[in-house]
């Protein structure tokens, strides 16, 4: 299939002239409708990628742990909250599609260009730190998942790193994207997993469909809500999707498709989160789940297949998170330092881009293998550091999307601004409270 913008116009997928169609019988009309539908689908498959990948990768190892723990703690009680977070994530990520397609610049470069070196270096440094720490948590998730199948962490880190390096070194964005999309499919293992525990659909609708705070709104509840927000909206996602849109050479005319791509991704991310909560909420409710791997082990005691699926899903989540996060950093560095930074480049053409990618993976993987490494502290620290970057990244995003000179007709409308500014204010307020309460756990007691 050809890359977008090269062989076909995305806006005009064979619209059949109405006059001619009206004169046809039912069979030819059905044929033309099916053909048109197929063409639309083919175009969607061509353009889809950044949105679906970023949204599915958003359900990373930390995310799976959060959802598993949420289900175990509150049953189906917080499903409604996850469903609300889907559109919120879409609103944020949709802006990166427009910004990338119009400016042809990644988020890091856009910040440097618009707001100068101070904010540029701040964002880049914070992104690197957040990404590196998050990458460590992805490796923790992957090694923990494969440890269930008796695969030693050292082997996991080495094999996984080699696969991730080979994925980018093949020299085509297109191929990388399709491989990543293939791994995204594995995230759907949670759906059969949830079906296997035979949940009560009526319970799910009645308990999870109506907004409520099981046990009341207390300190614990706040932590769980914030952890779920933190796993659904992360700073690296903004950087990743914008750079990905640029690397894919999406143009202004592709924006509607980019939106659809992001919307499909948002539905997928919510679907996966909901099914994980249904799984642990059905059979582990009331038990304290420390991480997704221990949830998988506990589930294996109840139903071997469900536990196995959760472990496979956890590994896949860590894997997808790792490839996206390390790429987000390498793209950002390439943009700012002026290195060649496309997945379409060969190693010789973009040595620094690939070197930074490999270095990030290797260093994060090594930390996980270090005996006595403060992995719990790292996991905690990620949340706090991400909190410093998230508001900044979102504020820059909105300011850039309102710059008439830069965005022209694609700038935010009044309605978009009301929604996005509202979302940003709520997220900034809540995430700040989360950071403060993470640092000072007794503050709200």
């Amino acid at each position, binding site marked *: 299939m050809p890359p977008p913008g090269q062989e076909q116009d995305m806006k005009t997928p064979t619209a059949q002239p109405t006059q001619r169609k009206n004169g046809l019988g039912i069979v030819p009309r059905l044929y033309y409708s099916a053909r048109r539908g197929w063409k639309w689908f083919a175009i969607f498959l061509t353009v889809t990628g950044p949105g679906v990948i970023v949204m599915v990768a958003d359900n990373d190892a930390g995310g799976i742990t959060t959802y598993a723990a949420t289900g175990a703690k509150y049953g189906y009680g917080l499903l409604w909250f996850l469903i609300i977070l889907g559109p919120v994530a879409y609103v944020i990520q949709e802006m990166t599609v427009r910004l990338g397609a119009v400016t042809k610049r990644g988020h890091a470069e856009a910040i440097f*260009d618009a707001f100068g070196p101070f904010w540029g270096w701040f964002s880049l440094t914070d992104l690197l730190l957040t990404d590196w720490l998050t990458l460590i948590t992805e490796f923790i998730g992957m090694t923990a998942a494969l440890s269930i199948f008796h695969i030693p962490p050292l082997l996991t880190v080495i094999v996984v790193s080699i696969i991730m390096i080979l994925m980018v070194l093949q020299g085509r964005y297109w191929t990388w994207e399709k491989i990543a999309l293939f791994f995204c499919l594995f995230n759907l293992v949670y759906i059969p997993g949830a079906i296997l525990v035979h949940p009560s659909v009526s319970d799910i609708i009645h308990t999870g469909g109506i907004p409520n705070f099981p046990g009341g709104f207390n300190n614990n509840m706040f932590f769980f809500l914030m952890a779920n927000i933190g796993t659904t909206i992360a700073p690296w996602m903004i950087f990743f999707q914008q750079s990905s849109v640029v690397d894919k050479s999406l143009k202004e005319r592709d924006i509607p498709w980019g939106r659809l791509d992001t919307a499909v991704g948002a539905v997928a991310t919510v679907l996966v989160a909901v099914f994980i909560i249904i799984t642990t909420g059905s059979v582990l409710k009331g038990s304290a789940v420390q991480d997704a791997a221990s949830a998988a082990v506990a589930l294996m005691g109840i139903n071997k297949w469900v536990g196995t699926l959760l472990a496979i899903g956890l590994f896949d989540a860590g894997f997808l998170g790792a490839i996206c996060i390390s790429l987000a950093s390498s793209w950002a560095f390439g943009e700012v*330092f*002026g290195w060649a930074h496309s997945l379409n480049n060969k190693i010789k053409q973009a040595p620094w881009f690939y070197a930074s990618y490999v270095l990030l993976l290797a260093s994060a993987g090594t930390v996980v293998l270090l005996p006595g490494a403060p992995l719990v502290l790292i996991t905690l620290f990620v949340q706090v550091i991400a909190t410093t970057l998230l508001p900044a990244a979102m504020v820059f995003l909105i300011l850039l999307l309102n710059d*008439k000179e830069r965005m022209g007709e694609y700038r935010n409308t009044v309605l978009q601004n009301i929604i996005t500014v509202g979302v940003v204010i709520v997220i900034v307020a809540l995430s700040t409270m989360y*950071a403060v309460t993470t*640092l000072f756990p007794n503050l709200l007691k």
Partner: protein
Amino acid sequence: MSDTEEKSHGSRGSFFGRRFARIREINKKYAGHHVTMTPAVKVALFLLRIYLLVLVAILFVKFFTILAGR
């Protein structure tokens, strides 16, 4: 210092020198704002600075609390 040591020291210095030169270049390239500085943009950037300062202050408090606790 031997010749070899001097050489490796010199090349290391030039390596860092080149990196700092690149950073200076980037700073020069992106110097100043290239976004329309409307009052809303100015207020947003000001609030962001305050927010980050407060957050850094909180991190420092936590750091010293941990130190004092030891």
